[in-house]
């Protein structure tokens, strides 16, 4: 376990030596991945893993009153999975950046320093041994994303308009996630007060939870979930993520696939022991997840910007993960809280599915973003209406993108298929088990299934519009395939997007759930994740075929509309008057709503206060001084700045003191 310390140091490596630029950043990412591998291997083959114990090491950071805050490392199998995939994907993104950001000149140094710090933040967060430490890294990532989204906030290659937009998007991302962060921080207060420590080992201790005030635990969990909503772009704070597309595409890949938005989902998975204390909390989590998945998918339907479509799909997929965690947790909570027996094994499905999907999503979303980046790099535009027919010029990009699309659409055997199917199964389970909120979960299942259909449709709409047919705009000149540093990561990722789903048959399910405190297996000791069992469960389940069918119909519809032009997409927005179309394009008017709130509650009140300050308070002060000195004329005379005047003022003060003294002496009778 010695490499741990070196590992944390390496996380900061790239940042400290930022002058060295590209090579150092890339090497540090490689080193980070290698060390994650070593650490994970050491842990997963060690005694601690086989006895379901996490590895914990920490030092005292701050102690006050009866409270103590530590700084340390906490490793269990969830940590291992998280740090492996995030460092692996980050490494590929770093390599890809060599080609993508090659033309940035002096700004490269800033870019590599920031993404290195970003990766360090994510790894630090994953390894944290307590909530406060997690919060610190969480915020470091927030700042990095602020800087990277605003990377082109001055001197934008596309001109001033774009740089204004980038600056505004960066601010929005920071403020909206900050709203979540304030909730997170309030959650920290609640937990710290309740447990007098924020260490996972203390907070997750079943005995401590049992003796704590239930209301406080629930409040803490809800506030943490507030942080998740902000960071993982859940409804109703989802709106910053599409705007965040103003940054370089590599940054989007980093934020969406490997780091930032996954931090929120990780936080739920990590604090499962708190969340499962109450079934209603879990129900809320599942509902928020499902609603997010659905509305984000609808917003993606008619968007013309290739990166924005991907951004909506990220939000939608994050919704899936959150929903899965909620549904699985609901089962566990019902059993623990009300003693409703659920099949122990099924209860673990939600947790496994959520984390599993997070990993798969990381692979295929990194692939999709980097593919989109490759397209943008070659064509110089993000508008899909101007693309088309690119598959001939960019064979590698188009094939790898196709694999990504199939994966996210849940096409059988691709990675997204397995995890999405598990998620849907988990959502269905409370209804099958006939629990109190079964009907709600049935509805959520329906939403999720429709979302699966929509996902398949909009992803293939994107693929066909970009790569199929003839070039639509002659003014867009395609440079041809991107350099090797960009295509090789694409090919590597497409192998994972194709194959990572099969890992579930090789014990990944066990690794995810086995000793993670709070997951079902931890409580119920389920070890039914044999490959045969899982395969059986999926193949014999009728709903598997329903969702599969929905996905296929989605792909077919996209094919008919955008490849064969049998159905004219323009019909849905005849004369540009369709209300639904406009509603979706305006993102359900969320940006408008935010702007109004910010304007009224922020700027409006501020103006009012400023007016009050200048006129009422300062006016009173000036009024009094005028009255005392005897009119404004006298005041102006004083302001001329003669020392004589000040002396006389001080003398006045001294006389006043004397008078008071005298008064006191006489009245006090000294």
């Amino acid at each position: 376990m010695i490499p741990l310390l070196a590992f944390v140091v390496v996380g900061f490596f790239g940042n400290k030596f930022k002058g060295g630029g590209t090579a150092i950043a890339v090497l540090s990412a490689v080193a980070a991945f290698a060390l994650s591998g070593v650490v994970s291997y050491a842990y997963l083959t060690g005694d601690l893993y086989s006895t379901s114990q996490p590895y914990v090491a920490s030092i005292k950071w701050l102690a006050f009153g009866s409270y103590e805050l530590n700084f340390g490392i906490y490793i269990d199998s969830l940590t291992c999975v998280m740090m492996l995939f995030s460092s692996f994907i980050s490494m590929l993104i770093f390599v890809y950046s060599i080609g993508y950001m090659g033309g940035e000149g002096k700004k490269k140094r800033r870019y590599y320093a920031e993404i290195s710090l970003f990766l360090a933040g994510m790894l630090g967060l994953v390894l944290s041994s307590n909530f406060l430490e997690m919060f610190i890294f969480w915020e470091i990532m927030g700042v990095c994303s602020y800087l990277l989204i605003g990377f082109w906030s001055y001197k934008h290659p596309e001109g001033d308009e774009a740089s204004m937009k980038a600056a505004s998007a960066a601010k929005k991302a920071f403020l909206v996630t900050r709203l979540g962060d304030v909730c997170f921080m309030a959650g920290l207060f609640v937990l710290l007060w309740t447990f007098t420590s924020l260490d996972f080992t203390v907070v997750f201790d079943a005995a401590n939870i049992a003796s704590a005030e239930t209301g406080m635990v629930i409040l803490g969990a809800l506030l943490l979930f507030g942080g998740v909503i902000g960071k993982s772009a859940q409804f109703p704070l989802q709106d910053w993520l599409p705007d965040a597309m103003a940054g370089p595409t590599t940054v989007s890949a980093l934020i969406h696939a490997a780091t930032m938005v996954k931090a929120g989902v990780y936080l739920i998975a990590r604090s499962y022991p708190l969340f499962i204390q109450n079934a209603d909390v879990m129900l809320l989590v599942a509902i928020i997840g499902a609603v997010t998945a659905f509305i984000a998918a609808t917003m993606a339907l008619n968007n013309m910007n290739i990166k924005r479509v991907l951004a909506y799909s990220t939000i939608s997929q994050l919704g899936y993960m959150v929903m899965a965690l909620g549904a699985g947790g609901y089962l566990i909570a019902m059993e623990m809280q009300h003693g409703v027996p659920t099949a122990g094994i099924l209860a673990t499905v939600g947790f496994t599915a959520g984390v599993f999907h997070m990993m798969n999503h990381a692979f295929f979303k990194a692939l999709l973003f980097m593919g989109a980046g490759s397209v943008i790099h070659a064509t110089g535009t993000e508008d899909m209406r101007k693309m088309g027919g690119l598959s001939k010029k960019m064979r590698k990009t188009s094939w790898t993108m196709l694999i990504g699309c199939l994966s996210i659409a849940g096409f059988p055997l691709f990675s997204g298929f397995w995890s999405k199917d598990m998620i849907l199964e988990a959502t269905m389970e409370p209804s099958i088990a006939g629990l109190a909120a079964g009907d709600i979960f049935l509805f959520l299942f329906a939403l999720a299934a429709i979302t699966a259909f929509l996902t398949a449709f909009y992803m293939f709409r994107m693929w066909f519009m970009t790569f199929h047919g003839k070039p639509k705009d002659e003014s867009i000149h395609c440079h041809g395939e991107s350099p090797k540093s960009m295509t090789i990561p694409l090919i590597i990722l497409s192998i994972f997007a194709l194959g990572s789903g099969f890992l579930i048959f090789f014990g990944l399910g066990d690794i995810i759930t086995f000793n993670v405190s709070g997951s079902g297996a931890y409580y119920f000791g389920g070890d039914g994740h044999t490959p045969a069992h899982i395969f059986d469960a999926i193949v014999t389940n009728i709903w598997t075929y329903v969702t599969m069918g929905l996905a296929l119909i989605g792909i077919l519809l996209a094919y008919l509309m955008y490849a064969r032009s049998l159905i004219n997409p323009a019909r849905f927005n005849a004369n540009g008057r369709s209300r639904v179309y406009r509603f979706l394009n305006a993102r359900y008017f969320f940006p408008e709503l935010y702007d109004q709130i910010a304007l009224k509650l922020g700027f409006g009140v501020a103006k009012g206060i400023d007016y009050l300050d200048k006129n009422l308070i300062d006016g009173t002060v000036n009024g009094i001084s005028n009255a005392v000195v005897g009119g404004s004329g006298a005041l102006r005379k004083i302001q001329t700045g003669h020392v004589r005047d000040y002396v006389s003022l001080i003398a006045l003060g001294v006389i006043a003191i004397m008078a008071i003294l005298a008064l006191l002496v006489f009245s006090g009778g000294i």
Partner: protein
Amino acid sequence: METGGIEIPFLILLLLIPLIGAVVTAVMSKKPKRAKNVALLFSGITLAVTLMYGYLLSAASTVYSDSESYAWVDTEYLRISFDMGVDGMSILMILLTAALVFIVTIFSRYESDRPNTFFALILAMEVGLMGVYMAQDYFLFYIFWEVTLIPMYFLISGWGGPRRHYAAIKFFIYTHVASLIMLIGIFMMVFEASAGGTLDFTFAAVKEASIAGIFSPVMQTALFGLLFLGFAAKMPIVPFHTWLPDAHVEAPTAGSVLLAAVMLKMGSYGIIRICLDIFPDGAVSWQPALIVIALVSIVYGAYACIAQKDLKKMVAFSSISHMGMVLLGIALLTELGIQFAIFQMFAHGLITSVLFMVCGVAGHNAGTREIPLLGGLAGRMPLFAAFMMFGFLASLGLPGLVGFVAEFGIIFAFFEYLQTTPELLWIIVFALASLLLTAGYYTWAMQRTIFGKETTKIDIEKVHDVSRTEVLALTALCAMIAIFGLMPSLILEVIQTMPLPMGVF
């Protein structure tokens, strides 16, 4: 204190060194360059002695306490002695003062207008500030309190902006009136404590009287109010704050830094040292009012920031908001509240110095501080943009930097306090909302000044980045912000050695 068998009067040295420095610097009107160096030398020596003193104190015992006493007026009727002493809180403030005066002297090397007087005034101010933080006698305390006022007045009126005379006289009258109210309070307190015997101005005597129960609850409430009024205007607390934005906008950068970073802390220092310690009952009766005005200050200051067009005025209002946090911590009357309030005093001192220096750079390197006139400066002033961003992020409480620990601690203390009255728990929302508002005005300001389209409203060719001495000063401050943010226990453990005031339960 005694070290290695030799008695070194550190406290008196810390007053004498800057005083001699001020006099020497002042007379060098013919050699302006040398005046700068002499000022640098003396502030450097002061800092070195302070650091040595701090080190010796920490080596000598675990409580950072020391005192020196010199008889002054000692008659049957009146006793005023030159009593000085330090504890965990004072030593921090003294260290902060010495460090900031030194850094400010480095930063202000560009000053070419009568530099000898300018730097002499800064050193003179250091004497006053040191005196306030180490005085153990009410008379002495008041004298030093007033001593700080005069150099600041001349700094503003002599080296300030276009409306400097108005701002200076407003600053002077405002704080002077507040001081007089405080003085009345001090006299009443000492008269009451002496109960017809010798008028004894020492802290010790009054404290003894307070412990003996001489002050009736009504008396305590009244005296707490009088003294608090004097201190609150200094901090400043809404609605006694309007002198501050004017003073800051007109003051030269060095003046602003010292004003915001160390002088405002005199107010909160006084409240902890005197109000809470002598009038525990008064503190309890004032508590609800204090919490309310603290919250008002926090939110009001933050909102006012949003509306400001002048960068420096915005930073000035942010000080009001952050000093409101200090008052909130104090008003809780709990151990955590006081400790983190002191922590916030220290943290805000470091952070706000960076902010005012950044404003100063904007003023003379870009030519204006008006936010609407600026834009896209990061391209031409990358270092300036980096420092500005660092300062702003530190000020909005980014975890890992010193401001976060302070805010986290104070709001947590507030949360803990509110547990006694759970039905009022919701008012913590105001404290939390301020975190959001703070992030809002800072990111908005950054968007409009360093990002976006490069401005065409100022002569962009004349814009130049931060100079070398300014980089040095800013880097030193940023390093401290990061170090104490990552290792807050360095500061907190010093604070924890302070004996808690009587008003704290």
